[in-house]
């Protein structure tokens, strides 16, 4: 900030501010491992651009003495620290944003914690940054982390890199040390697509080459860090691209005005330009570019505007308006880089939501082509993706959308992945290219079959076969289990005497033959429901081993779970919820299981519930744990 403000007259100040009005904005990201000096560097920039007030400085000096790591000196790192402490409290900090300004530019710094597992956070910070500063400790040189940071920066499309070779004071300001690091970096980053790499020897702690060139590195002829940040060109690229406008909002105050509002995501637009609605292919001509400051002759990338068109075209939120002369891809399948951001793994076939521009659609990953090891860049086979893993995946969307490759346009090639149940943001995607149906063999993965149906529901189908005496608690427990499953978003169905005997099996009585037929039908219906991808809860006394075995053998071995409600006869009889035991004892009901018809105890049930001692909730919980243990639910 300019120091002479004190001496300015009001008019000078107005001029000064007018000049400030033309300041540009640079968003950058700092990456480094713990103790590379990242916080010290950011604190130093804030301090040296005098963005600190007296009360903040007083706090800083006090804290430096108390907690500082640099003796009596001011510890600049204390100005910005605080990320680590919160991490320990279990609070996820993705990114902290810091601000400082000079006469030439305003800066927004994305500061991310430097830990191994923080791919996700770095990606978040990088997504809005134009430039990345990679810190390298001069004593250690290029480390695995440096490589990882460079890879993520390039993945997120950052084209400007500063290699800050920090703590050069501890290496006697050695030219050789600096040049080795610079050359090593340039060598391995050759394929990362960076437009410019600038290496600077620094001492964040003592300020060398941070704001001004240091006399202690006379051999260095490049810019000081701040000089470079103030002058590096970042903006114009986006304007040279083909016109893109994702429609955020249809502005319709009255019947005479119909405007399409959004932030221009590439190129520029003028009244009279031909435009196309990407997905529908309809065309029109721009009539006006409307803003609260008056109509514009031209609007460029980054401008939040409202367009009116010459024709009545059907356009709604989520549509992409594009230059007629240079249109994006439109497809319902594409390949993309994915950074996974959730503890719950990415599972191919599971339906997610994808938000791309202003458009949200259902989507699934049809195939993980390969994972990328962020340290070695090796390609690895994968069936699922865990937190902080990076992969190339094929996506299939519920409808075609317009997009560009991320490499061509960061705005129209980026998307986020949202979990449908928790609404969490679980991943970030960067589109590589569209997949045409005809050439895409992976479409077969979308054949309609048992696994496709189950995948759509995000679950493994299974039969929970509750067996036991009348009054053993089968239906009560099954009901609780079903409620729990439903609450977790599972798709279930319950078959019991009440809903089967009144319809499907109305023609059956209670003779042994009818009982066998009853179970056979229930088993066949369960099998159909398994095919439909459901979790089926069957609650029948089913006293005979043979019928239970028959039911078991209709489905795959891991699709059948026998739940034995093992309640002693006297307990079940004392409950007698429907008064049936009483009637059976009185001889009013014939062939009643446990009284005058046998119950064959299961020999190897998957789970045995002893209902005497425990509550039904606890017993239901045992079933749920079994399902978790078997990976049927998460």
């Amino acid at each position, binding site marked *: 900030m300019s120091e002479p403000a004190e001496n300015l007259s009001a008019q000078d100040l107005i001029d000064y501010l007018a000049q400030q009005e033309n300041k540009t904005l640079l968003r950058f990201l700092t990456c480094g491992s713990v103790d590379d000096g990242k916080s010290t560097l950011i604190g130093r920039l804030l301090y040296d651009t005098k963005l600190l007030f007296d009360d903040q400085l007083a706090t800083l000096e006090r804290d430096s003495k108390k907690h500082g790591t640099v003796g009596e000196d001011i510890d600049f790192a204390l100005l910005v620290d605080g990320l680590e402490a919160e991490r320990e409290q279990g609070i996820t900090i993705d990114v902290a944003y810091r*601000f400082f300004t000079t006469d030439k530019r305003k800066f927004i710094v994305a500061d991310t914690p430097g830990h191994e597992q923080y791919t996700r956070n770095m990606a978040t910070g990088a997504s809005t940054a134009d430039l990345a500063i990679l810190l390298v400790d001069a004593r250690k040189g290029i480390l695995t982390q440096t490589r990882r940071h460079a890879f993520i920066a390039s993945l997120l499309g950052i084209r400007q890199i500063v290699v800050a070779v920090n703590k050069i004071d501890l290496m006697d300001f050695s030219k050789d040390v600096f040049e080795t690091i610079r050359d090593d970096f340039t060598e391995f980053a050759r394929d990362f697509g960076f437009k410019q790499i600038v290496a600077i020897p620094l001492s964040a702690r003592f300020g060398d080459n941070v704001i001004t060139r240091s006399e202690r590195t006379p051999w260095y002829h490049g810019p000081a860090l701040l000089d470079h940040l103030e002058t590096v060109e970042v903006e114009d690229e986006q304007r040279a691209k083909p016109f893109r406008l994702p429609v955020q909002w249809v502005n319709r105050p009255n019947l005479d005005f119909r405007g399409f509002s959004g932030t221009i995501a590439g190129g520029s637009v003028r009244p009279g330009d031909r435009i196309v609605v990407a997905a529908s292919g309809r065309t029109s001509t721009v009539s006006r570019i409307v803003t609260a400051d008056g109509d514009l002759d031209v609007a460029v990338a980054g401008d939040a505007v409202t367009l009116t068109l010459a024709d009545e075209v059907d356009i709604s939120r989520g549509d992409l308006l594009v230059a007629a002369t240079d249109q994006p891809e439109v497809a319902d399948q594409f390949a993309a880089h994915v950074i996974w951001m959730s503890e719950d793994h990415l599972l191919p076939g599971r339906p997610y939501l994808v938000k791309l521009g202003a458009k949200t659609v259902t989507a699934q990953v049809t195939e993980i082509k390969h994972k990328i090891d962020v340290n070695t860049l090796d390609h690895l086979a994968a069936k699922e993706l865990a937190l902080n893993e990076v992969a190339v995946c094929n996506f299939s969307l519920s409808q075609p959308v317009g997009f560009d490759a991320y490499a061509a346009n960061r705005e129209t090639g980026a998307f986020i992945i949202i979990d449908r149940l928790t609404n969490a943001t679980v991943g970030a995607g960067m589109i590589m290219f569209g997949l045409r149906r005809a050439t895409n063999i992976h479409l077969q993965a979308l054949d309609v079959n048992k696994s496709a149906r189950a995948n759509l529901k995000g679950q493994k189908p299974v039969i929970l076969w509750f067996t036991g005496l009348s009054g053993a608690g089968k239906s009560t427990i099954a009901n609780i289990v079903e409620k729990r499953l439903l609450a977790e978003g599972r798709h279930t169905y319950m078959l019991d005497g009440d809903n089967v005997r009144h319809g499907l099996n109305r023609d059956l009585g209670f003779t042994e033959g009818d009982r066998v037929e009853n179970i056979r039908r229930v088993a066949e219906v369960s099998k159909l429901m398994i095919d439909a991808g459901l979790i089926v809860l069957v609650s029948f006394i089913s006293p005979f081993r043979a019928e239970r075995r028959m039911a078991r053998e209709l489905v795959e071995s891991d699709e059948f779970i026998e739940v034995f409600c093992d309640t002693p006869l006297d307990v079940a009889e004392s409950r007698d919820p429907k008064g049936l035991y009483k009637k059976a004892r009185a001889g009013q009901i014939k062939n009643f299981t446990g009284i005058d018809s046998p119950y064959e105890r299961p020999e190897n049930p998957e789970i045995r519930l002893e209902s005497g001692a425990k509550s039904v909730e606890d017993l239901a919980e045992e079933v749920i744990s079994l399902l978790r243990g078997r990976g049927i639910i998460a």
Partner: protein
Amino acid sequence: MSRDRKSHLKRLEDESIHIIREVAAEFRNPVMLYSIGKDSSVMLHLAAKAFYPAPPPFPLMHIDTTWKFREMIRFRDETAKRLGFNLIVYTNPEGLAQNVNPFDHGSSYYTNVMKTDALKQALTKYGFDAAFGGARRDEEKSRAKERIFSFRTANHGWDPKKQRPELWNIYNTRIAQGESIRVFPISNWTELDIWQYIMLEDIPIVPLYYAAKRPVVERGGQLIMVDDERLPLEPGEVPQEKLVRFRTLGCYPLTAAIESDAATLPEIVREMLIARTSERSGRLIDHDESGSMEKKKREGYF
């Protein structure tokens, strides 16, 4: 604003408009919280721009603690009318009935009841699922990590584990029934940006920001304005006319004035540029306990 060059203010303006439109499009029932200060005046101005030529498609809401400066209330009503907003004013009825005030109850209890609780009550009463606020990340060290979209449970609580990463300008706006969000469209503005923008765009602000002779008393080194007869004077305290202004506005008994002769915008900005204390030091509630911002956020104040 001039468009031949993409100035930092233009980029901030575009970003804020993008956020405001996104919320209007994706939420069922949004509301804009109006604190009447300079930051929310800028936010209102941006909202008006975002939907031009239509009026903003959501109402304004002011949580009236009954202890705001009188000039703020007057300004509030004028501004809502000028920009075509439908204005909702809400006061905690229980707090009002019990005459909860900063003197008898202490500033922290008072703020809780009249501000935090009142806000939660109002959001519930009207069923708002998104509330715009004018907070900025540069206001305080701990705000640096705040997201633009801040998710709240059905009880308006802030669960740190439920917050979402924000990539590009793509915001995940999905919430479950009963949940809501707070949105901070001017997160990336600094105090200087706000003042420069107010100058450039000629945005009206409450006259209290300009220096004028006002009756004040000095308490614990702070100048408190005697805005009405409700301020209990301590023994020996006599209000004095001083040339003062405010850098931040809130409830008058809790907001300290500074001595200043800056009576025009350029003078205010000049004073800001050479100021030696940060903006929040004039806000008394922040001194109550350290880490109070975090705590207030969890309780639902922000």
